[in-house]
């Protein structure tokens, strides 16, 4: 279970919408166009249909589709993401991961202006939309830094040994966040037909999932870093 959390997010594909970042993505992920094609299939199959539902129908359908969405999204991301992360112990892999961390930060700087402008057009609170996207980028940066510093296998080992239950709970929030954001972005960035009230509900869910993701990241961060883990473990044992 924990291994599926050690993947980059589909959010990276947003970089294709910004010209100077799109070229960088092709260099970082040789299979990038395949990933985009699969992500677009996921958008069509799982995200688009949600947008025309009435708000009261959304929760049932979202819950019904979530497990399949997770399977499809992992299938789309694994070929590119695993190639990158599995090479973290090689110089060329490390260089790529460092570049990707820089890319994620540039992506956020660029995308936040776009999100701010577009979300206002749809009468959404821009800060909510930006905050939800930031949580996904923070997750990517967290995973990439850890893989770079302690290696993929060691990261999976520490998560499994020290926070197996927490990572399982985290995974559900993380993929729920991916699902809501991919659906919201269809409207904001592609102007796909939607119900206004349903879109607003999806944004409110994305903010909730984003807050949970950030809280779990802080928890998992303590657990995977040896020094902080030992301090916290020792402290809790003495209580």
């Amino acid at each position, binding site marked *: 279970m924990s291994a599926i959390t050690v993947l980059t997010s589909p959010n990276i594909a947003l970089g294709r919408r910004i010209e100077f970042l799109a070229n960088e993505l092709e260099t970082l992920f040789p299979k990038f166009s395949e990933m985009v094609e699969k992500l677009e299939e996921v958008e069509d199959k799982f995200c688009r249909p949600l947008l025309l539902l009435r708000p009261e129908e959304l929760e049932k359908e979202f819950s019904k589709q979530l497990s399949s969405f997770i399977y499809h999204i992992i299938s789309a991301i694994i070929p590119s993401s695993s190639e990158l992360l599995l090479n973290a112990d090689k110089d060329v892999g490390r260089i790529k991961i460092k570049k990707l961390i820089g890319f*994620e*930060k540039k992506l*956020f*700087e660029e995308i936040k202006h776009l999100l701010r402008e577009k979300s206002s057009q749809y009468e959404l609170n821009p800060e909510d939309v*930006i*905050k939800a996207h*930031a*949580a996904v*980028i*923070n997750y990517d*940066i*967290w995973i990439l*830094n850890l893989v770079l510093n302690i290696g993929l296998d060691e990261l999976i080992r520490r998560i499994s040994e020290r*926070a197996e*239950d*927490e990572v399982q*709970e*985290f995974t559900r929030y993380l993929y729920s966040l991916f699902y809501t954001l991919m659906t919201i972005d269809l409207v904001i960035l592609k102007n796909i037909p939607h119900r206004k009230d349903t879109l607003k509900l999806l944004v409110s869910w994305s903010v909730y999932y984003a807050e949970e993701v950030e*809280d*779990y*990241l*802080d*928890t998992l*961060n*303590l*657990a995977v*870093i040896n020094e*902080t883990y030992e*301090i*916290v473990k020792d*402290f*809790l044992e003495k*209580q």
Partner: protein
Amino acid sequence: MKVKCKVEEKSSFKRSLKRLNQKTKKRVKEAIEILKEKPFSGKTLKGKYKRLWKYRIGRYRIIYLPKSCYIQLILISLRDSVY
């Protein structure tokens, strides 16, 4: 008059504070003053760590245990973030 809670700085907290630059140390001290007045103004961690609380200061988190007007500061944790 506002009630200020007692704060205990664990040695692990002091060690992590020492590593910070002056600007961040100042922000941590300001955060501790807030926690003295409102010990539950942070958020709880998750799962088996949920007894502990975190208070965010930019890229840093003060990890602490609040009791009724007594706070144990455990450490300062770092996580890079864009927002």
